[in-house]
């Protein structure tokens, strides 16, 4: 299965998680890892499976490198009914509790508005927590990839 991994990151943590997913499941699936600043919304028209991995910046914002893509998609009339997706949302639940993981949640809401089909609840990852967030992301991705695959079959 071909899967687009869209990485929205400031510190590189989301990119690290994407690389871990590729390493874990690269034998089974064909991943296209893209940094959001190097691509544009048209890429969503030519893909059927998507995982967005996004951090959160400031008070619940989409990180700066993702702003042009986000605004372009928001103001477009793209219909993404062909697109199945999952979202991994990173944040800091200690300092930024009120807006925790809102960057990723904003991607989820926007993709819904563009008629894309969410196959699973977003994974919220707390960088201030004691768990290894990369391990959590790799575990969640197994279920997400299975859901993406079964959605194609259906």
């Amino acid at each position, binding site marked *: 299965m071909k899967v687009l991994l869209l990485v929205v990151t*400031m*510190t*590189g*943590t989301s990119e*690290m998680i994407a690389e871990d997913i590729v390493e874990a499941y690269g034998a089974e699936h064909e991943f296209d890892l893209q940094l959001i600043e190097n691509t544009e919304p048209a890429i969503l028209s030519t893909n059927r499976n998507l995982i967005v991995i996004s951090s959160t910046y400031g*008070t619940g914002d989409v990180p700066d490198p993702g702003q042009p893509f986000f605004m372009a998609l928001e103001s477009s009339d793209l219909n993404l009914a062909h697109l199945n997706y999952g979202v991994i949302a990173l944040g*800091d*639940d*200690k*300092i*930024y509790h*009120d*807006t925790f993981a809102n960057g990723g949640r904003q991607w989820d809401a926007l993709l819904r508005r563009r008629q894309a089909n969410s196959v699973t609840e977003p994974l919220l990852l*707390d*960088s*201030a927590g004691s768990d*290894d*967030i*990369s391990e959590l992301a790799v575990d969640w991705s197994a279920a997400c990839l299975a859901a993406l695959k079964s959605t194609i079959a259906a």
Partner: protein
Amino acid sequence: MAIAIVGSGPAGFYMADAVSKSLPNVRVHLFERLSLPFGLVRYGVAPDHVGTKAVYRLFDRVMKRPNVSFFGNVEIGRDVSLGQLESTYKVVVIATGGTVGRLLQFVGTESFYHISGLDFAGWFNGKPDALVAPPPSKARSVCILGNGNVGLDAARLLTKSSVQLQEAGVPEPVVHWRSVLGLEAIHIFGRRGAAQTKFGVSELEELGRSQSFRPVVCPQEVLDGQGENIAALDVLRKFSQDVPDDRLPITFHFDTEILGGGDGCLKTNSPHSGLQSHEAGMLIHAIGQRASPLPGLPFDEGAGFIPNENGLIQGKENVYAIGWAAKAGGGQIASNRTHAQAILPRLAAHLSGSSTPANGFVNTPPPWLPFTAVTWEQACAMDPWRT
């Protein structure tokens, strides 16, 4: 072919990340003045902000690449000269950061115990050389100069209980110092108005959640709604309407001029409060930072950085500066990543044509490496974050 990166804070590690990933045939040697890696991430980010510190996991990944080596406890000018680095490596990158906290100069400064906000954070993070003099054992009142998040970090750390500090990994002597300090009041002074601060909204709100201290803002000081940081002003306005309780005060003073000091008191003047005198058992300067000069390299004393053109240091052909040392990147951890990626093509031009050595990456240390140098494995073994 090999590159030396001097400094293992965010600038150095993001540079090492970019080079080692895109040029897998280039050996990357990362030098650190202290024994433990991560610079600002370890010693500048407040110890209770674990989510921000978690970026070190990314740096750990960089060290897993076969073409990267770390050498701690190696200082330029003490253990190795810049000339030796230049003749050993094809490219040298200076990533030594903004390590010197600025101190405000005024008449009567000898009346106080001074510490920069940067060193204060370093001290609470266990940085070995954070203190230049033993701190006062008693201070009823601490004054903080500067209206940015470094000042808020210092205030917040002072409001923490022993248990909270221990949970954040603050060294036991520091926890003990705080527990017997006898602190009853914190003052935070800004030269500009309440709408012109550099405070973060979340960082202000965090201070408002303290169990033992309460932010105090005079309603008259937050009337003016014109300024560049209205989001923070809104939080300060909320503070100004809070009902007093039995928590101790953290008092904000805006538009304040420091007139001088004497008898352990800071003399101030502001349009709202007029002439005032505040006891200052400790004076924390959180008004910015500068790079430190390195022997053999030019330095702009006024602006506090290494003069460079898009990273290339003045008068050099293969020595670059990045991050705080180059006064680039804007001071955020993540902006070092952007800066490293911007400089990468220039470094790649020097390093092109590299091929993997026939014997693979043995990554031989430089011949002049002192025997006191600390390897990555040794640094990990002595790292309190990993025990």
